[in-house]
């Protein structure tokens, strides 16, 4: 009985706590961006060294908390192959959104495969409506409330 309670608490705790960030290849990211059970999907490209990216993270967290699927794609591995800095950052900030770390080395090829409109500059955000296939792309940091505005328009 005690064991059952313990396991239940553990499972409950696991689903409430943000999952450990996954390291993904381009194909995984493309898969994630093209298939979703959720209609709306917000994908933000950021890095722990990017000031404007960190400043807008609370807006994504807020939207994620409201039930919209949010994926934060860390580009940290591009410059530093050690993911520990990202894991520590996630823990320190208590990020609840799904975080993935992109592990690819030829940006000139993969940037266009992610979105042709993207120059590669951070931060950048893509909002996808999976049922209509429509995509909004924004290549700058978002202002407060802007994400909700864009979500209502897509």
């Amino acid at each position, binding site marked *: 009985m005690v064991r059952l309670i313990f396991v239940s608490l553990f499972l409950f705790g696991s689903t409430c706590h943000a999952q450990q960030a996954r390291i993904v290849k381009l194909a995984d990211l493309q898969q994630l961006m093209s298939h979703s059970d959720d209609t709306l999907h917000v994908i933000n490209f950021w890095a722990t060294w990017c000031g404007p990216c960190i400043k807008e993270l609370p807006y994504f967290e807020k939207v994620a908390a409201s039930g919209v699927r949010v994926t934060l794609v860390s580009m940290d591995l591009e*410059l530093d192959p050690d993911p520990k800095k990202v894991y520590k950052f996630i823990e320190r900030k208590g990020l609840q959104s799904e975080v993935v770390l992109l592990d690819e080395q030829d*940006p*000139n090829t993969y*940037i266009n495969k992610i979105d042709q409109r993207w*120059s590669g500059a*951070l931060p950048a955000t893509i909002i996808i409506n999976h049922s209509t296939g429509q995509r909004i792309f924004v290549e700058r940091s978002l202002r407060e409330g802007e994400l909700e505005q*864009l979500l209502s328009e897509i």
Partner: protein
Amino acid sequence: MLAFFAIVLTAANPVTSGYGIGDTVSDFKLKNFDGRMISLSDYKSSKGVILIFDCNTCPYSKAYNDRIIALHKKYGPQGYPVVTINSNDGKQSPGDSFEQMVARAKQKNYDFPYLLDESQEVARAFGATNTPHVFVLRNSGQGFVVSYIGAIDNNSRNGDQASKKYVEDAVNALLEGKNVPTLQTKAVGCGIKWKDA
């Protein structure tokens, strides 16, 4: 609804235009770290210019700093000097203020310009998006023609391990009168810190 959506899309990105390959660029005049004013037209007797939008704070700029200095060392004597421009808003990014630019240029003994693009007009005219962002300009005799746009190489972590050195390939081709093999590339980097509208 569609028109409104179009407005949202175009308003969303600060730079949607800029020079393309083959364009002749307008002259500009900006303040150098040593206080002098430098114009692109000052280089009218050079074969060209390796123009790089750069800054102090971006980790990519830091990672490429030695490579930028090396490009000037190699190509300056061959007629393609480096000119760097900082277009970041110093208010949003104090580490990119003019004083900090002076400190960086002196610390690394810059023997090429590090210009302040205070109004960000030059960055907008070129369509620069992140740092570092290279525009190789060939002097046609009637002006400076954009001949390569993009990244310095394809390995931000380690230049020695880069399998493609885009800027070197471009300048070598121009010096030999050949076609630039790769005209335009993209790279991950820090977005230019645009002033708040």
